[in-house]
């Protein structure tokens, strides 16, 4: 028992810097009374830093032949090493899953011996789970850079999501910290899997029983703050990868300098910046914003004081106020304080009469924030004519953004 506890502690610890914990987007059903399904995306618990725990996130091993400067597992780092056997990973996954601790497995690995040797073992694990254990829970597999196309293709038949990390937002940044790596080497497997997904989809249209191939799609991750890229570079890279490889998600991970001495206090990762990047990512994917509207040569960085939607609105006061009772879907969606669901509710509710301020509040709109950008049936005249800086200071004084309390302890340090 002590040995397996130690292994788990080493190999979970080394895996936790991968931030993806998404377990949604797959439609895998439980067939023939096997165990599990992967269509729900549940967070089973939350870490003490408030992140969702949905998957058992572990490395097969933290031995690695490479020496990437940002990574805990780099070969030059003096840390304890361990490796699971194939069966240990399978049993751990099954026993956690059956107790409803997790939605599934997030498996990655340091590169042991060489890429294919490692990839073969990862493949054995996912294959055993699906075929012998009849496990239908979620599997996210991080591909090993440099693994052969055959191994990647076979693994694709068993997993729900595949990912491979860009690590740094630009090629130059990556070269600095990991000379052996390149964005080109990431594009190759992303391209292979993207083509296969497409091919299986086509075949599915013709023949019903074509197996699924990486049904939850691909994702990638960038480390933020380790290299000097600005927010524009980061988001333009993200946007390009979303487009070129039909990625499901891009993750941003605030860099935490990994120290070997523990004399110095823990260094705060750039949490607010990371948060603003996620908000921007969200606006690109669900709010119809184009990356150039938010970040461009004139505004290369995000505003840390206000969220990017409010930032855009303040820069574009000429687009406001919009009339709650007549504006179309897209214009309502751009109002700070009104989310997607609220837009739906407004569109429904205004069929029954012109909406007033108190009704808007009841619908769950952040009216205190939205008031500067809208007119309702009973809006007093004059509110709409404030200047950008007036609106900004009023909103800021009004109270923290929804997320500010969560960061207050950190921000007060500066």
């Amino acid at each position, binding site marked *: 028992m002590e040995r397996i506890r130690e292994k788990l502690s080493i190999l979970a*610890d080394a895996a936790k810097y991968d931030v993806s914990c998404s377990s949604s987007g797959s439609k895998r059903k439980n067939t023939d009374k096997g165990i599990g399904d992967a269509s729900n995306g549940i967070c*089973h618990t*939350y*870490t*003490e830093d*408030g992140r969702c725990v949905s998957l058992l996130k572990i490395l097969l091993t933290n031995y690695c032949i490479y020496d990437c400067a940002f990574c805990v597992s780099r070969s030059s780092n003096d840390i304890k090493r361990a490796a699971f056997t194939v069966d240990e990973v399978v049993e751990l996954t099954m026993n*956690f899953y*059956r107790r409803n601790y997790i939605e599934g497995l997030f498996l990655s690995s340091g590169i042991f011996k060489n890429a294919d040797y490692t990839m073969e073992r990862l493949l054995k694990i996912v294959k055993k789970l699906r075929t012998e254990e009849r496990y239908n829970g979620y599997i996210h597999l991080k591909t090993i850079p440099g693994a052969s196309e055959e191994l990647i293709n076979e693994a694709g038949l068993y997993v729900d999501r595949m990912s491979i990390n860009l690590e740094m937002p630009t090629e130059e940044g990556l070269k600095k910290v990991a000379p052996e790596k390149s964005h080109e080497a990431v594009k190759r497997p992303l391209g292979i899997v993207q083509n296969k997904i497409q091919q299986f989809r086509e075949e599915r249209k013709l023949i019903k029983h074509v197996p699924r191939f990486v049904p939850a799609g691909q994702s990638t991750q960038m480390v933020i703050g380790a290299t000097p890229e600005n927010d524009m570079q980061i988001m333009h890279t993200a946007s390009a990868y979303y487009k070129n490889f039909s990625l499901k998600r891009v993750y941003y991970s605030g860099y935490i300098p990994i120290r070997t001495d523990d004399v110095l206090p823990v260094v705060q990762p750039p949490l607010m910046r990371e948060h603003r990047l996620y908000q921007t990512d969200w606006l690109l994917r669900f709010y119809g914003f184009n990356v150039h509207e938010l970040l461009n040569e004139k505004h290369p960085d995000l505003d840390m004081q206000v969220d990017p939607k409010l930032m855009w609105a303040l820069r574009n006061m000429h687009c406001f106020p919009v009339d709650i009772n007549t504006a179309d879907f897209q214009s309502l969606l751009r109002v700070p304080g009104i989310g997607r669901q609220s837009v739906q509710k407004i569109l429904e509710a205004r069929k*029954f009469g012109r909406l007033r301020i108190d009704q808007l509040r009841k619908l769950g709109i952040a009216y205190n924030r939205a008031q500067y950008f809208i007119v309702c049936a009973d809006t007093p005249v004059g509110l709409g004519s404030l200047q950008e800086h007036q609106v900004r200071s009023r909103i800021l004084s009004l109270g923290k953004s929804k997320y500010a309390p969560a960061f207050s*302890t950190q921000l007060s340090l500066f």
Partner: protein
Amino acid sequence: MIYLFDKSFEGLLSAVFDRFEYRHDVSRLLPADQAQQVLFEETHTVYSSSAKSERVWKGIQAKADAAWQRIIYCAFLSELTEVHHTLFMVLVRLFAGQVNLKNFGDATVLLLSQTAKKVEREKHRMKAFIRFEKSEDGMYFARIAPDFNVIPLIITFFKNRYADQPWIIYDQKRLYGVLYDTDQVHHIRKLPEDLSDHMLPDKPVQMDEDETLYATLWRDYFKSTNIEARKNPKLHRQHVPKRYWHLLTEKKIIWE
């Protein structure tokens, strides 16, 4: 007139039936066990009947879309007296053609949809927070104590997911549960004393020999996923409210 009912869904729908049958002018729907609150007004005790409630439910199906049928049922599961009363009133107005369920500007409609949302949220939480313990005979056993009566909403989910293992989910607040025997789901009422909560910490059932191992590994794992530099207890409690901690393997105090 005040209506008294037995707090069942059947009872609530039967109350709507009676209201149209007898053309009473009903001011309030109350659970029968709160009858002592009524001092001067006349009361009518609703007898729950499946014949009556089925007719009313058919009527609801004709007048409300699937989403609203779900809202009605979820709001009922809140078990809140005020919400049951509102539900009754809205249903009466629905049959009288005096309410539009799409009008969220209507406070009663809004109350029902917001209550249903709370119930759905707890249902979602239960899907996440239920923790099975494996006993010696291979049974996976989970205790819950939710604010609302959410078991009816999670049965299908667990049946589909854990189709090849027998399990019990037991609500120790409401003293009932469901048992899945890998074929069918059975309702179980009030477990024998020795399985209920106050017998802890002496584990009543013999646990599987690996139970402690995996519970320990899970607690280890939970601890190790934490990144100290990002610690944020407030956010943590927002996601995992304290009232659920005592039944979470990774949060509860261990009796050792």
